[in-house]
């Protein structure tokens, strides 16, 4: 028998981009930028809220004293849980070092899994996408993977949400066009949850807004953030910044610019309603200087977001990250490389709620084959972070002794008991060449596409009660669109 005392064990792989001291340095620099440079708010109510809280308001420009930021960091809710929409079961604990993964929102285009045609996203394509997300075991929540365009465009968000809620019971992150859209979606979610209080108690939706980098909180974003805070619903606030374009070229400068925008949003949410659950977001990447794209496959994307995860852990606030996406226009080797690197690295970093799985063509076209491939990558990535468990049982001295030199472990009970610790692939090929050839010599993308079609044809999501679905339809049908930029 061995005894161990005062012993330190790791239960996962570990990765850090920044030390605690560096995290502090970045946050303090962001506080400095929030005060020295400030950010602009385009919403009147937000300006009033911030002014009342003691921020320095000069026209649209708001300078936030550091003590207000520090107070907001204290008051925001750290324990954020997203629930199942049918049962209310508390499923995703968006906090600490938990890493969840899901799809991305609002791509203008999608690739049809049956015809391979690239076309504008529709009600049907969003419904199909949600079904696929629903069926995959490693996908934890759903974003729309398309902006519905076969309906009046100014109310596309209501149609999007309807397709989502009909096709999955997983938590939904909803990206609305404007405050009116968000109000309608919250109404629909309250119907599903059984009331405003029920939704707040066990929220299955998470709201989403973006500042306009560098340094602008536009009308829609600020209004959506304030509404989320007042409703007490988790709200993601996520700068999408590119080094050399809407942020400095240096990676540390990107961190400061992004944190400055996120934390300004945090201050607004906390001043609107103390304790509001706030999720600090990020799509931090580079402006590709040859092609001018906002890159979804650059190594800097993964590096910056792993760095942001360190800062989020340091601040103890939930974070929204990005992974499983590609700049490639089709699902090829490039897509596989970019998706795998980002998922593995993001998962190791412990970023909490990670989106954009299934984005191809630098975020303009969703692709369900990639979602299925990402589900497999996620299985592998989670095996990596599960690490290696070391104790008397797993050191396996008994069975090593029993089998002895020249023996075989395959038929040992110990083997059978522990086999599940290892990842069993569902998609990638490990078969011998002849067998693979007999099965049609298929590439990973072909196998993934077959699975997508199979899910769309055969998977049946848990249905919504008929009366609830009917009431949701009514809200969609009565939705009124507002021209962008319109106030009141």
């Amino acid at each position, binding site marked *: 028998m061995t005894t161990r005392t005062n012993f330190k064990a790791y239960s996962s792989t570990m990765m850090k981009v920044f030390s605690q001291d560096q995290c502090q340095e970045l946050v303090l620099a962001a506080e400095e930028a929030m005060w020295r440079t400030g950010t602009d708010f385009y919403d009147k109510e937000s300006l009033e809220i911030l002014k009342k809280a003691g921020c320095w308001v000069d026209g649209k420009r708001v300078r936030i004293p550091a003590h207000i930021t520090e107070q907001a960091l204290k008051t925001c809710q750290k324990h954020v849980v997203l629930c199942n929409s049918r049962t209310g079961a508390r499923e995703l604990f968006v906090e600490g070092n938990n890493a969840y993964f899901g799809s991305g929102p609002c791509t*203008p285009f999608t690739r049809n899994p049956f015809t391979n045609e690239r076309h504008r996203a529709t009600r049907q394509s969003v419904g199909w996408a949600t079904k696929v997300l629903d069926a995959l075991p490693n996908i934890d929540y759903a974003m729309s993977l398309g902006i519905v365009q076969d309906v009046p465009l100014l109310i596309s968000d209501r149609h999007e949400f309807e397709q989502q809620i009909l096709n999955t019971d997983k938590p939904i992150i909803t990206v609305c066009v404007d405050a009116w859209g968000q109000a309608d979606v919250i109404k629909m979610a309250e119907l599903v949850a059984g009331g405003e209080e029920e939704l707040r108690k066990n929220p299955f939706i998470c709201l989403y807004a973006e500042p*306009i980098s560098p340094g*602008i909180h536009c009308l829609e974003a600020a209004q959506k953030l304030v509404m989320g805070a007042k409703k007490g619903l988790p709200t993601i606030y996520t700068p999408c910044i590119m080094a050399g374009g809407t942020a400095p070229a240096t990676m540390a400068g990107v961190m400061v610019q992004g944190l400055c925008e996120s934390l300004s949003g945090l201050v607004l949410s906390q001043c609107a309603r103390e304790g509001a659950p706030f999720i600090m977001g990020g799509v931090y990447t580079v*402006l590709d200087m*040859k*092609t*001018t794209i906002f890159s979804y496959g650059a190594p800097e994307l993964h590096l910056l977001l792993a760095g942001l995860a360190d800062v989020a852990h340091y601040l103890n606030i939930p974070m929204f990250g990005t992974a499983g996406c590609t700049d490639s226009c089709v699902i090829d080797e490039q897509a596989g490389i970019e998706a795998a690197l980002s998922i593995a690295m993001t998962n190791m970093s412990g970023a909490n709620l990670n989106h954009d799985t299934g984005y191809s063509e630098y975020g303009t076209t969703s692709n369900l084959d990639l979602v299925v491939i990402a589900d497999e990558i996620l299985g592998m990535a989670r095996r990596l972070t599960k690490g290696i468990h070391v104790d008397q049982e797993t050191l396996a001295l008994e069975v090593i002794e029993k089998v002895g030199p020249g023996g075989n472990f395959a038929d040992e009970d110990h083997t059978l008991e522990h086999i599940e610790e290892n990842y069993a692939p569902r998609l990638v090929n490990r078969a011998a060449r002849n067998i693979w050839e007999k099965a049609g010599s298929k590439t990973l993308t072909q196998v993934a596409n077959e699975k997508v079609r199979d899910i769309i044809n055969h998977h049946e999501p848990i249905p919504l009660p008929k009366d609830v679905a009917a009431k949701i339809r009514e809200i969609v049908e009565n939705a009124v669109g507002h021209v*962008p*930029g319109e106030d009141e």
Partner: protein
Amino acid sequence: MANFEELSKSVISGNLAKVKKVTQALIDEGVSPLDIINLGLIAGMGVVGARFKNGEMYVPEVLVAARSMRAGIELVQPLIASEDMPSAGKVLLGTVKGDLHDIGKNLVGMMLESRGYTVINAGIDVSSEKFVQFIKEHKPDILAMSALLTTTMLGMKDTIELMKEEGLKDQVKVIIGGAPISNDFADEVGADGFAPDAASAVDLCNRLLA
């Protein structure tokens, strides 16, 4: 003696101080101001444009080169009557109403300027009425509209319709771009062209004004 090749090379490397020095030297030597622009400054930018297209130069290098070219032009400009100033064309550029995405639009503007276009930047969140007002005021050859959202791209059609109503559509070419825009959409709304990025936007303008 200063020469055009030296000037072009200084533009290509974005060496602002040198561009100024060589330009001044050429002026002092009595070289024709138009030749300084066409054979030195713009010739240099021509090389930069070609290299960018081949992936041999990056966006910031192109923009730095363009800045040095402009510094040279500023020195020569007072010596030329304004109607003789060479310009590839005048482009009115803006992001449509309700849309605040602007980095892409700005890159299009910078690339156009770097290739000798005069660019009037109308900014973001520009309504149809504003576009039309700007057109009347500045009389551009081309109107370039940017939209990154499916909700705001509808504004492009409104602007084109309003231009027709005001009888402006025949005098001004319209080009559009941004993530949700496609060739089909350009045809649908009656635009004269679409380009997927800044470099091809320049080619498109060249084609339309040829």
